[in-house]
């Protein structure tokens, strides 16, 4: 599994270009999240892909060839903070509820909705943690689940910022040479 972070133009069709590229390279995407950044023109993606280092290089370099991608970087080898968020609807009757509540505490999940026959839990954290919680919830009966997909950030001073300078002078030179 390889993790890439990309800064892309925040406009329609860009997600399609990115996913279409992965499809063309025959790279299976495990999760792809996209959201706004502090700059409203730019969106940030975290792409988790079933591929090896070579495939990730190809994906990274090909992504950067897309006009609407400002930067793409394979961060798999870097110190990463990774988060996934899950909402899990689990069946819960009077009998098993106390046991369930204990587990929830251990995994630092929260109960965000209570109904007579079920609870909705919210849990965030590393993927393994959520997978672990799911494992122990299964015997109770997982009725429904929604996961956000992974978002990742390199730790500490290892900054990954989008380029925001004016269009490169190289391209301006191409424009003035046409004729």
């Amino acid at each position: 599994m390889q993790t890439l972070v990309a800064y892309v133009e925040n406009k329609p069709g860009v997600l399609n270009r990115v996913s279409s590229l992965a499809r063309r390279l025959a790279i299976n995407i495990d999760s792809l999240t996209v959201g706004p950044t502090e700059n409203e023109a730019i969106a940030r993606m975290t792409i988790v892909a079933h591929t090896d280092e070579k495939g990730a290089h190809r994906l990274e370099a090909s992504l950067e060839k897309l006009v609407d991608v400002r930067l793409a970087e394979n961060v798999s080898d870097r110190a990463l903070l990774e988060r996934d968020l899950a909402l899990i609807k689990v069946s819960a009757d009077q009998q098993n509820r106390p046991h369930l509540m204990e587990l929830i505490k251990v995994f630092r999940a929260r109960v965000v909705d209570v109904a007579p026959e079920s609870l909705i839990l919210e849990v965030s954290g590393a993927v393994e943690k959520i997978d672990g919680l799911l494992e122990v919830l299964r015997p109770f009966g997982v009725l429904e689940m929604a996961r956000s997909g992974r978002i990742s950030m390199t730790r500490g001073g290892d900054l990954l910022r989008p380029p925001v300078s004016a269009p490169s002078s190289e391209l301006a030179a191409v424009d003035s040479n046409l004729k």
Partner: protein
Amino acid sequence: MKLTGAEILCESLTRLGVREIFGYPGGAILPVYDALGKSKLHHVLVRHEQGATHMADGYARASGGVGVAMATSGPGATNMVTGIATAMLDSSPVVCITGQVSSKVLGSDAFQEIDITGITMPITKHNVVVSHAEDIARTVREAFVIASSGRPGPVLVDITKDAQQASAEFDWEASAPQLPPKRQRTNHDPAEFDRAVELLNSAKRPLILAGHGIMVSGAMRAFEQFVRAGNYPVAMTLLGIGCFPASDPLNLGMMGMHGEAWVNNAIQEADLLIAVGMRFDDRVTGDLRTYAKSARKIHIEIDRAEINKNVKVDAALVGDAREVLEKLTPHIVTRDHDAWIRHIAKLKGDSAVRDIQSLPDTGHLYAAHVINDIWKETHGEAIVVTDVGQHQMWEAQYYHHNRPRTLITSGGLGTMGFALPAAIGAKFAKPDAEVWVVVGDGGFQMTMSELATIVQEKINIKIAIINNGFLGMVRQWQEFFYDKRYVATPLVAPDFAALANAFGIRGERITKRAEVVPVIRSARESTETVLIDFRVEQEDSVYPMVAAGASLSDMIRRPNSPLVETATEP
């Protein structure tokens, strides 16, 4: 100044230096055609939109500039798909402009509405829908920049009919391209550069693999200086042909599936391969597990995605070929490779005896002879545009190009039907050049309707049909790998000379070797287009051949005995 979107488009194209547009009209692009009529742009009416894209492509490849094709929405746009893909795979800068239904009905399955940007997403470098007149000038400028910068490629601009009709302020200064900023990668990793220099100066058996990127970069002079500095032998890819003169003793010829035997052997024996602007296509490498095992590799390449894609390299210099070569050349100190070069010359000598040129004259007409005669008669100075198949490979082997951009051929997609329209485009790019089409009887029948375009535009090109009565290249595979079961490869054709006459073009038919040179001479003397139907040996094959996926060392060679006699009905 207030103009309609259609007028803004024409004005923008004019300012970008466009003279010709290859296109075909229809409802959704009619406002633009109306504006075209009032502009200084020359519109070339094609007979099929695929032809328009190949013409724009041929124009781009011959000139080094951007070619422009135009079509209406729906079927006009979808007819462009093959031509766009052809340009994409060979990194050719083409801008396609399509009309689109009005933005108010977009998404409603309106008449002739098709999602052409969706369809062409994987086969364009970029594409975009424009639905406001005020965005047209900037978008078209951006399209030209994208098409021609970095690794070039096709760009499609889909303009809605209401955007063509609406009025907007035209301000060229204010419509400069506004492309998203990119991370500037530091291309020349110093450690990588030092490693490359060390490899160059320690190699005993170096060999350059010269590709299309040299032409794209305009690096011919820098490349020659690099070659001379290191005294390196040069092998070319199909699309690299012309980047270095064939007449130079250091130029060995083409590599790969139908490359020269001595070139492939040299690749397998080399201790250093210096790949410049080429992408190690599978037609070039054969089986990767056995490819150039004793060689270290340096890759000079503008596209990071090509590094280590097919062949793992020891030093990757990412950047424009000219810039990298200019930086590299002063560091070359070792240039004594005479023993290696003598060794390759010996390999070459061993091959010559098998060459079809050396076979006794059996009275039959061979394609190789025809092409070699065209080469001699045109002094290697013509622009030759080939189609796809056996004749394409014979052209690469027997027409020796000395100048860049004089072989125009579809390499990556291998698009039959490319040659005739691409040659029309090339002729518009280089009106003073002698342009020859070398095409098979199969591929010619795919786009021969463009003969009418030639007549309407009164242009002068020479068309050599290498007519073997078969889909020759496929027949060859059937001969070698399917026990001569010729399924769907024998091919009926019209009388091409008579067909040419019907279009108002002079047509000739040649069946004997002695007639070849005279007909070439008389065709060259004519100031009009001439079509020559060369009835060649039907079951000749292209040698050497590395079967798909086989090792470069395993070449099928031309049998020493004269060819099997086959009936050629003239």
